[in-house]
């Protein structure tokens, strides 16, 4: 197979140099899904058990927990990575199951906008308590 691709190149010389396919993006989307998932493994473990151990805590106790620098930083990382991972994950689902360019692109952009707004809201809340 590799012999044939040398004899009959289907890619332009520039494309070969850049090492990217016609989509121009290569494997970036796939790669980022994996990178964020690896980062989210320890963060999720920490967040789920932290949230569980905060059950029934008062307003003041919860604020004090969020305000601790260690917790605030990990919360910001969890928020950013979760919404990034969620946005590109839902994008794949939309690409797989929607018909029509308008529905596909409109859906993807709407999800991305929503994820941005929610991530900013959550991040601002953490900063307001912690700073």
């Amino acid at each position, binding site marked *: 197979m590799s012999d044939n691709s040398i004899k009959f190149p289907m890619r332009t010389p520039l494309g070969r140099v850049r090492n990217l396919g016609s989509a121009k993006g290569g494997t970036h989307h796939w790669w980022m899904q*994996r990178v964020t*998932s*690896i980062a*989210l*493994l320890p963060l*999720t*473990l920490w967040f*789920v*058990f932290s*949230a*569980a*151990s*905060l*059950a*029934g*805590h008062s*307003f003041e106790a*919860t*604020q004090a927990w*969020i305000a601790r620098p260690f917790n605030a930083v990990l*919360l910001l990382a969890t*928020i950013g990575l*979760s*919404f990034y991972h*969620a946005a590109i*994950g*839902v994008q794949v*689902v939309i690409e*797989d*199951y929607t*018909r*029509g*360019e308008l529905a596909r692109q409109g859906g993807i952009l709407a999800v991305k906008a929503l994820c941005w707004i*929610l991530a900013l*809201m*959550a991040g*601002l*809340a*953490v900063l*307001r*308590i912690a700073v």
Partner: protein
Amino acid sequence: MSRNSDLRDATYVGLRTDGTRILRPKSPHLQVYDMLQITSGMSIGSRITGCAWTVGLLLMVWWLAAAASGPAAFANVQWFMSSFLGMLVLFGLSAAAWFHTLAGLRHLAWDFGYGCDMPAVHRTGRIVLIATAVMTVLTWLVAIIAWA
């Protein structure tokens, strides 16, 4: 069959043996696969729990925003989270979160080239299901101890 609204649909058009046209499924669709099979069941389960968790992130945003805005808003969150419906949603979310995390770990192992043979796929599938139950119970044990 209606007219194609998407150019890409052209590659999915097939013919039945009687000559009528039919649209082939594009991606793993629920009606095509046996959902009791652990392979396809885990696959679609991973997607569904991912989507559920994405919606569940709304609860996290609400919780953080309420904690930032004041005791009255925070009391609303606590009222919902401790209600029957709230507990049910949180329990479902915690199970979905663990399933998606553990199934994701299985996918990462596949990406590294481990566990791709069929016996391993069946075995790790069952392990993910059992580990999801164990982690969910553990999470709620922590929550109940913190609550008491």
